[in-house]
């Protein structure tokens, strides 16, 4: 059976990863915007 600490890491990890994804998209958008490489 998966342990409690695994469940912790599993859920917090997924939420953190998703949040980082949103942040990464915003940073990439700004970089593309500045460099004029959006499309």
């Amino acid at each position, binding site marked *: *059976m*998966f342990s*409690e600490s695994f*469940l*912790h890491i*599993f*859920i*917090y*990890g*997924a*939420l953190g*990863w*998703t*949040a980082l*994804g*949103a942040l*990464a*998209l*915003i940073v*990439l*958008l700004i*970089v*593309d915007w500045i460099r004029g*490489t*959006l*499309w």
Partner: protein
Amino acid sequence: MTEDVFSISRSTGWIVVILLGVLWVALGIFWGKRAKNSEGFMLAGRNVGLSLGSATAMATWVTSNTTMLAPVFALTLGIWGMLAYSTASFGLLLFALFVGRIRTLLPAGVTAGDFFRLRYGRAGWSLFLIITMLYSLSWLVSMAIAGGDLLEALAGIPYLQGMSLILVVCILYTLFGGLYAVIGTDFIQSLIILVGIVFIGGLVVAKLDFSTAYEHISTYQPSLLKIAMPAALLAVFNNMLFGFGEVFHNNVWWSRAFAMRKDVAPKAFFLSGLLWFPIPIAAGFIALAAGPLGINIPDENQTGPVVASAVMNMSGLGAASGILILIVLFCSMASSIDSLLAATSDLLIEDVQKGLFKAKVNEEKFRRSAGIVIVGLGVLVWLLAAPHWPIINALFISGPLVGSLIWPVIAGLFWRKINRRIVLAGIIAGSALGVWAYFSLGWFTASLVGAGVSMVATILARFISPETFREADLPVQNH
């Protein structure tokens, strides 16, 4: 089960959906001005950058199934259920390895059909068109049905009105803006989806005492925490192969591969896979909170919205909870419907109208022709969605069909010679046996069987009288 559970009135639902619809259509018209010719309309000028490219690939892959079915997987298959869903991201990660080769092989390519025609001739191309049309249409119709169902469940908007509304909005902005509009709106929609999922997940985590929750689940639902769960492990591989088949063959992904700048495309697909991977877990785990928080789930298919709404109500968010859920789900549906409308209409114009029927569609006629195809496709989807048939089953049954295209795509991209007839026989046999397995052995075996049979045939085709690909490594010309 509507207003009582989700605390959102019908008028609020209409206002939210209409405001979102007006926003998407306005943005579609604005971005659509960039589309000066057919290449601009269908492929956004072949110059899409990393941020928009990653977001559009990720948002297209987040459907209402992801946000709605992931909690159901968590509720029925536990930890492995969520992981099984996450493996669908591997399709995007692997496709990143193919994109460079696709762009080298087809520098002027427009659709996935160009590849199948080049590698497997007219017979293979026709077989691909049958499979992809069946799959794309059932995906589109099931999304439209899901949209109608959700607006009815969340805001009490009658099914036919809600389904028509979401379809009309997506048709309008795809019609005005082509792939520019689709990619632009996908970026905003992907941010809304990610932030919404993190916000709701954060509230659930804040309400949940992990020790108590773990004790509750291990006492009352121990199967959800089991490490060895054969059905869930089969689901992992089945979902992964279904994902491979969907991504490798469908024009939704190929059109993006052609739309992105060549150096950007592999990075964008890899990043989209990385961004997508945690979403089924972040959106699904809230189902595990239902038991410990004493939330009653009257309908398993509504697990996600019911738990999210209950937790937000506990946090004092009231009506805002229903609005937030509606916005996130609306975005996850629109981001897939628009992409499917655009990519499928490209296939209908390029492969069916111009390819099969040899119709001449010049630049002047293109926008009118594209408009007719997009609206026609929308009307067909509406007609199929209106009776509320269980089309989602057609989508799941198409799993082995698209699974049987995995190996032919890989072989066509990377091998220099093959016996085409054996490959095509493998696709047909894999599809047929996969559908048989779906009904006889269980849904979680169908894609495995389809991909397995086709793999054996493709490997045999490499060694039994292989013919060199006649046009290998030569650029394909536009029709």
